[in-house]
Each structure stands twice: as C-alpha cells, then as structure tokens.
C-alpha cells in the first residue's frame, strides 16, 4: 500500500544556510532602496521650493547624524544591489563567440562595473564642477 509521507519544509529556510541568507540580503536591499526613493522625493520637493529657508533645513537635516547613518545604510545596500546585479548579469545574458562562451567576468565588467564607474564619475563631476 502506498502511503507517501509529506514532510514540512522549514519555514525559516532563508536563515538556514549562507547562500539563502545572502539571497535574502540581496532581496532586502530593495527595502532600503525604496526608503531612499521616498527620501529622494522629499529632497527634490524641498529643493523645488526655491527659498533659502527650505534649503537650509534640507542641509541641516543632511548634516544630522541620523541622516548620515541612514545614508550609510542606504549606500551599503545600494552598492550590494549593484554588485549582486552585475555579478548575475552574465547568467541572464550569456554571450558566445562561435563555440566559446564569453567569460562571465568580461560580461560583468563590460555591462556592469564599467558603466557603473563611468556613470558614478560623471554624476560626481556634474555635481562638483
């Protein structure tokens, strides 16, 4: 007689091994990024008011330790998103030349890290020039 046994799957699977924890960390960067996007909206709104008072309050908030702390967390999360995103790009969009697969690291640099560097440099230059 067949009487298959169904076992429960661990509800805390995402905590169980390093790989699952890293996956969850990657997915949860989106929460930090979403938080920053909300801040960005407020920041643009405040900047758009145009008067010196609003800009001063924006600056004083930006200099507050809480802002520094939250920005640091957001920066780490966003950078972790970038790194994981670029590292996975070659798996999603593999390329070949004839029979040979273009090495993953070449694709990651050409489509990810390279443009990242250019874009970051350009934005910093545009802000500081």
């Amino acid at each position: 007689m067949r009487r298959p046994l169904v076992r429960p799957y661990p509800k805390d699977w995402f905590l169980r091994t390093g790989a699952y924890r890293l996956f969850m960390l990657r997915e949860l960067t989106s929460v930090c990024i979403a938080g920053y996007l909300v801040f960005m909206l407020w920041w643009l709104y405040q900047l758009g008011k145009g008067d010196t008072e609003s800009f001063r309050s924006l600056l004083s908030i930006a200099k507050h330790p809480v802002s520094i702390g939250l920005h640091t967390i957001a920066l780490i999360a966003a950078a972790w998103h970038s790194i994981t995103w670029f590292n996975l790009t070659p798996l999603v969009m593999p390329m070949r030349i004839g029979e040979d697969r273009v090495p993953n690291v070449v694709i990651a640099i050409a489509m990810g890290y390279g443009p990242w560097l250019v874009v970051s440099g350009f934005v910093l230059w545009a802000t500081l020039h």
Partner: protein
Amino acid sequence: MSHLTKTNEAFWWSLFSAGGVMAALFLPVMIFVTGFVLPFMMGEDVESQQDRMVSLVTFWPVRLALFGIIFLSSFHCAHRIRHVLMDFGLRWAGVALMICCYGAAAGGAVAAGLILVRL
C-alpha cells in the same frame, strides 16, 4: 501539469529588470551625493550650494533622467518586495499584494513626475 495560470508577470519583470539596472548604475552615487557630497563637500556658502544644486536638477535632461531612475527603481523595489512577501507566506494575497506593491510604486512615480515638472 494539472493547471496553468496565465499571467502578465513578463510586464512586471521587464520593469523590475530595467529598474534593477537603473538602481545599480545610479543609486549608489546619488546616495553619496545627497548624503555626503552636498552636506560636507561643497563648501560653506549656502547660497552657492543651493544655486548649483538647483541648476543641476532643473537641467531638463537631468529631470528626465531622475524621473526614469525613480520610476523604474520604484517598480524594481515593488516587484522584489512583493516576491519576498510571497516567499514569506503571503502568496495567498495574490492580486491584493500586487495592487499594494505596484500601486505604491506607481504613486511614487506620479509624485516624482509632478515634483520634477514643477521644480
């Protein structure tokens, strides 16, 4: 397979992917600018700081870029958060969860559009 559920997930996934690229390329440096460059690396003259920031952000290509970044990154986050919540056991919430996540992202995109147009 007993049953197949038709889905427009391809559409949400394409927004997620485009947003993932935008967020990966632009957000770290933007966070660095608003969090560290503006308060600490642009001198002491508040009015010149304001002038420089406003003239940068109101430059039309920058407005368009900011809109694209915020719009797509919002949907990127919404999609990921939705899937994390599904993995955490909210799969039964189905369409309601989609409305919450993508609705919030759409709201953010509309707000970004309004703010950027009126800058």
